[in-house]
């Protein structure tokens, strides 16, 4: 009998080791991929920065890689990305917060049961669809009713639709944060004579603030990295401007443009997309770290 027991134990232990290994490797896949991406970005960017100084790249206000004389000042691309992101924030933050408050505090249970999944479906619409929505629906609408001589590819339309695109993300994450605010805090405020709106604006939202701010940051980070929408609808004209009616080029859109073009491997223009990609990576990484920090730093313990 004793041997049988011992055998059983050994196989269990080996199974445990295999399971551990499989799980460990699964976890390592994404870490190794990230490391690989950083390696490629940095090493290919080095080739770029051997010819263009970091200062000229970060401070230059002209981006003309495809014409002579070539200029590699990344500010127009960063500016284009931030312009579209800023516009999207104007839409997504108030509407996202509003939907979250409605869903978590005001919606009757039945409406909530329908709307929450609907919001999640909206989050699953491919971004290319949003791109065509901006180009073929929102832009003509804006041209017809607001800006008659606005160019077809413009930051405004892309920014507004980008805002709509990230509403579900902002709303869902903010709503999670608000639902997590304990009922006892709401009751405490009601018991002091607060109206529903006072409970929401003075207790629920402030208590959920870290989650709400994190939702905002993640939403904007998503907007910064978004590619398809800006490539389709915002144009391909690197230009440092604050006028949303103008055609611009976002960082991601530039990378697409060069990747699809006939740029030979190893040229300066080829290397430039890695420099832009690295810049983008640092920006979104910074936003995500900021989001994490906000969540930990400001988290209410209830």
């Amino acid at each position, binding site marked *: 009998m004793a041997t049988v027991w011992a055998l059983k134990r050994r196989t269990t232990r080996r199974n445990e080791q295999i399971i551990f290994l499989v799980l460990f490797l699964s976890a390592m896949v994404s870490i190794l991929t990230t490391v690989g991406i950083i390696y490629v970005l940095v090493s290919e960017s080095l080739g770029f920065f051997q010819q263009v100084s970091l200062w000229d790249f970060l401070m230059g206000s002209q981006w003309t890689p495809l014409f002579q004389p070539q200029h590699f000042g990344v500010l127009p691309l960063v500016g284009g990305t931030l312009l579209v992101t800023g516009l999207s924030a104007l839409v997504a933050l108030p509407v996202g917060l509003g939907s979250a408050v409605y869903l978590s505090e005001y919606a009757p249970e039945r409406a909530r049961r329908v709307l929450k999944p609907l919001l999640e479906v909206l989050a699953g619409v491919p971004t290319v669809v949003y791109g065509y929505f901006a180009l073929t629906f929102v832009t003509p609408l804006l041209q017809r009713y607001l800006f008659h001589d606005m160019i077809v590819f413009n930051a405004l339309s892309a920014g507004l639709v980008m805002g709509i695109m990230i509403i579900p993300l902002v709303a869902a994450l903010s709503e999670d944060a608000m639902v997590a605010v304990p009922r006892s805090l709401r009751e405490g405020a009601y*018991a*002091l004579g*607060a109206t529903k709106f006072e409970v929401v604006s*003075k*207790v629920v939202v402030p208590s959920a603030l870290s989650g709400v701010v994190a939702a905002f940051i993640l939403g904007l980070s998503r907007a910064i990295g978004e590619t398809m929408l800006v490539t389709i609808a915002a144009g391909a004209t690197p230009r440092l401007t604050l006028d949303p009616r103008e055609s611009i080029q976002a960082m991601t859109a530039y990378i697409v443009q060069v990747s699809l073009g006939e740029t030979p491997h190893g040229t300066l223009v080829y290397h430039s997309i890695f420099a832009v990609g690295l810049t983008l990576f640092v920006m979104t990484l910074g936003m995500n770290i900021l989001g994490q920090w906000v969540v930990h730093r400001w988290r209410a*313990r209830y």
Partner: protein
Amino acid sequence: MVQATAPSEVFHVRDLNFYYGMFRALRGINLAIPRQRIFALIGPSGCGKSTLLRCFNRMNDLIPGARVEGEVLFNGADLYAPEVDPAEIRYRIGMVFQKPNPFPKSIFDNVAFGPRINGYTGDIAEVVERALRRAALWDEVKDRLKQSAYALSGGQQQRLCIARALAVEPEVILMDEPCSALDPAATLAIEDLIRELSKEYAIVLVTHNMQQAARVSDRTAFLMMDESRSGFLVEEGETEEIFANPHDKRTEAYITGRYG
């Protein structure tokens, strides 16, 4: 509104039935709550004593499907009359909950919350100090009013919640098992405070702790639930009378520990 109650009563409950949807949680409650005294509601778990307490400041309105039948008079006026604004009612009738529930704000902002939302324009620091003094918390927190309320101990948090309720100068304070989450020392501090406050306020205290009801209250009502789990009033009277000489066998069984 006709003055339908004696001036010495703050609440008068008449033939109260309370429903959560189809479920009748309270049936046929008749009760008068006097001013400036401590009124204890005791009874086994689920007998509806908290539900009854929450009828006094219309907290139950927040629960979908909750419904009241009968009358609850506050200073002789029907609390559930259509023209009554529940927010105003809750401003005049303070409440302290089972678990301390300070807001994730500073000590000062917690106490100032009520006066601020009710549009108080005077010196808010003075109001905060007065409320904290009355809740016997001032000396412990006066040097750290800007700190988070969560830095306080459980007992201090509960006194902060009492200060928060006092800051809007209510006429009545409803307390829903205010010591159940506290240790014995903090419990005694809160009980002393309740006695002190009863000089100025009517206090309705729900407690599952019979010793507490006996120690603290002036009058006691004993509730039970029937076969269909509806709560009803068994008897009500001076606390000494209820504990020393209960009229009903079920009260006697409960307070001597032979029930529940």
